[in-house]
């Protein structure tokens, strides 16, 4: 059975938004923990780091003046002006499910709707430290439940394919952003105290939920180069950039008219494979990630143009 272009578009975005909500919840939670552990005087770029990950400074500045904890957390958790806030992402995911529920397992709508109601009711109250952790945990586990539901019940055909594409695209995007901003904050910090390095890099892996995998595969000591290398290239961990790109290629294969999209995804994967993190300055890492982000944008465009936009048809009268 085939699928409407419009539906493919909405499923792709439902999936991106769910992944975005989960990711935002993860790095917000990890950063909150980190801040509690850091000795006073360690300057990590403060709460602004979280806004930088979302590349959302202009939007933030429109509505807030100071990058303090209260403002940043409200912006990330509850603010509907921020397209990457948890509240907005969940709302948008729900809207997309509402219009595609006919192709999804029956329970999907019910779960996403419940998640939306919970988020709407609790977001504003969860900005403060007291309820924040519990709220973020709820968001993460409910998103995981919905993903689990989809992955264990959906037929492996078009709906699954576009959901997976959305999920992997968003994850590759978010992972590279977190590495970019995280590495920047760690490497460029003032009063650089090497004793804190392990703590900081561990925290970054934590926010990508990659810390235990790293310890198993690489070892207990978290060091900059192996950490970046791991999160970029590890073949077996679903959070890594290489894993996402391979998954994207896999899902593009069975689609018609896939040449452009596959071309871009392959170039991106080649570039990633060739990148050697050793002896690179932060500036070089940042440049690499910038270029890599352009590939992701192009890939998103290619997917949109090939499968989502109305197909040009035979000329019709008027």
């Amino acid at each position, binding site marked *: 059975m085939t699928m*409407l272009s419009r539906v*493919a578009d909405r499923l792709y975005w439902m999936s991106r938004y769910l992944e975005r909500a989960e990711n935002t919840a993860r790095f917000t939670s990890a950063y909150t923990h980190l801040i509690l552990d850091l000795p006073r005087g360690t300057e990590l770029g403060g709460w602004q780091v979280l806004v930088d990950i979302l590349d959302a400074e202009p939007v933030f500045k429109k509505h807030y003046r100071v990058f303090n904890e209260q403002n940043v957390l409200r912006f990330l958790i509850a603010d509907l002006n921020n397209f990457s806030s948890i509240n907005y992402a969940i709302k948008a995911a729900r809207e997309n499910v509402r219009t595609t*529920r006919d192709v999804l397992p029956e329970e999907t709508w*019910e779960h996403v709707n419940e998640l939306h*109601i919970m988020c709407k009711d609790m977001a504003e109250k969860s900005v403060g430290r007291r309820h924040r952790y519990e709220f973020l945990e709820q968001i993460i586990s409910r998103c995981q439940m919905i993903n689990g539901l989809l992955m264990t019940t959906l037929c492996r055909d*078009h709906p699954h394919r576009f959901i997976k594409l959305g999920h992997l695209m968003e994850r590759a995007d978010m992972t590279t952003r977190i590495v970019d901003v995280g590495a920047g904050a760690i490497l460029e910090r003032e009063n650089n105290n090497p004793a804190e390095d392990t703590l900081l890099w561990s925290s970054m892996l934590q926010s990508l939920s990659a810390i235990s995998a790293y310890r198993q595969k690489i070892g207990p000591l978290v060091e900059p180069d192996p950490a970046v290398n791991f999160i970029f290239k590890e073949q077996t961990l679903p959070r890594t950039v290489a894993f996402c790109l391979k998954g994207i290629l896999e899902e593009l294969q069975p689609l018609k008219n896939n040449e452009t999209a596959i071309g871009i995804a392959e170039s991106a994967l080649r570039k990633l494979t060739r990148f050697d993190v050793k002896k690179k300055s932060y500036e070089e890492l940042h440049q690499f990630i910038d270029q890599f982000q352009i590939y992701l944008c192009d890939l998103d465009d290619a997917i949109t143009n090939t499968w989502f936009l*109305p197909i040009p*048809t035979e000329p019709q009268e008027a």
Partner: protein
Amino acid sequence: MNKSWKSYDSGSFFDELLTSTGNPRLAARGIMNFLRNLPGGELEERRAAAELAIRDMGISFTVYTEGGNIDRSWPFDIIPRAISAKEWHRVSTGLKQRSRALNCFIDDVYNKQKILKDGLIPADIVLESTNYKPQCQGVSPRYGAWAHICGSDLVRNKDGKFYVLEDNLRVPSGVSYMLENREITKRVLPELFENYSIMPVDDYPTQLYKTLASLSPQQNRKPCIAVLTPGIYNSAYFEHAFLAQSMGAELVEGSDLFTDDDDCVYMRTVDGPVRVDVIYRRIDEDFIDPEVFREDSKLGVPGIMRAWKAGNLAIANAPGSGVADDKVIYAYVPEMIRYYLKEEPLMESVKTYLCMLEKDREYVLKNLDKLVVKPANESGGYGMMVGPHASAEKRREFAKLIEENPRNYIAQPTLSLSTAPTCIDHKVEPRHLDLRPFILQGKDVWVTPGGLTRVAMVKGSLVVNSSQGGGSKDTWIVESNK
């Protein structure tokens, strides 16, 4: 006995669950015994549970207001309405008969027009009706079936008999709520199902699929069926999605479809264009094809009428079906049954005064305080006047409307709609209700076991439409042979 029932009194109205002496009717015995013996406060707990279930299931409908559209939760009353299977058998037989006659009529009007030539119905009321679409002249859909999905509104009068109030042949809605109501009842009153034999309702999507599939122009392959919705802002969008999902059909909007030079309709998909065989349209026919009907329609598909006329596409309900969904035509349905089927009508109709006829009009104008006046082709309870409840000013306004445009108005005696126990603010009170069964007609005719019971939540009110504050109840057809 639970105290919330103590003061229950349905007065002179027919009550669906209780007899005039306050004893449960046969079909309602199990429900009443259970509810009356619930410990105090538990009815309220169950009601709250139902509310939560509705919220979680995301059952909603959209209400248009000045401040934009609001997605409102579906108002549901947990006390089911019960009808005996024996009585239902009679009703459904009558409804099938009615549906067959109505379809014969539509097919006749768009082809030979025998009934008009024979003078049973004045030709001008049919041919000058806005619901008559000359663009459909000469088309013969399969099995002579035009109104494939019909939602007939029934009310039970003081005499205990069911009357057909109107037949909705254009795009009747509400069936998904019938199905969801049963789901909720199963969740919140599961004990009731143990000792009862209640006819299941969840067969509807299968029956609808069968009906639609039987219309496909390409009978040698699995038909491609699409539900055409005006989109997410339509009040019944929830239902469109629900039906598409439960039939495994595509839910499409106008922009998902196009008509090609071969006069076939295609969907835009990720694999390229795919041909559609049957469209279940939930868009008013005026909007389905800007080439033929309203040019400004953004909801429709240019060329879809070409495809339909060429026989490359089935549309349910067929465009033009609304010609029989006119309150003036309603008055002639008993005649149609005699004319086309050579049978006597099995269902009662309500006495209808046609304001276009001088004698009727005189009577109506003299008796406005006793009658219900309705515009001939509005639905959703809009633009009507309930005489006994209307102010003198309102009645004068309607008298003027009738004199200005008599063809547009009909009047009927005010029926005493039956009541049923309904939870209102921790108590149980009688509220008026109606019933909308759905009749499917393709190769075969099929009627839902029961239908959607709509209840006016406001005390004394007769307006049950959800757009105007109505609620609904689960409807049980009960086998009572024990």
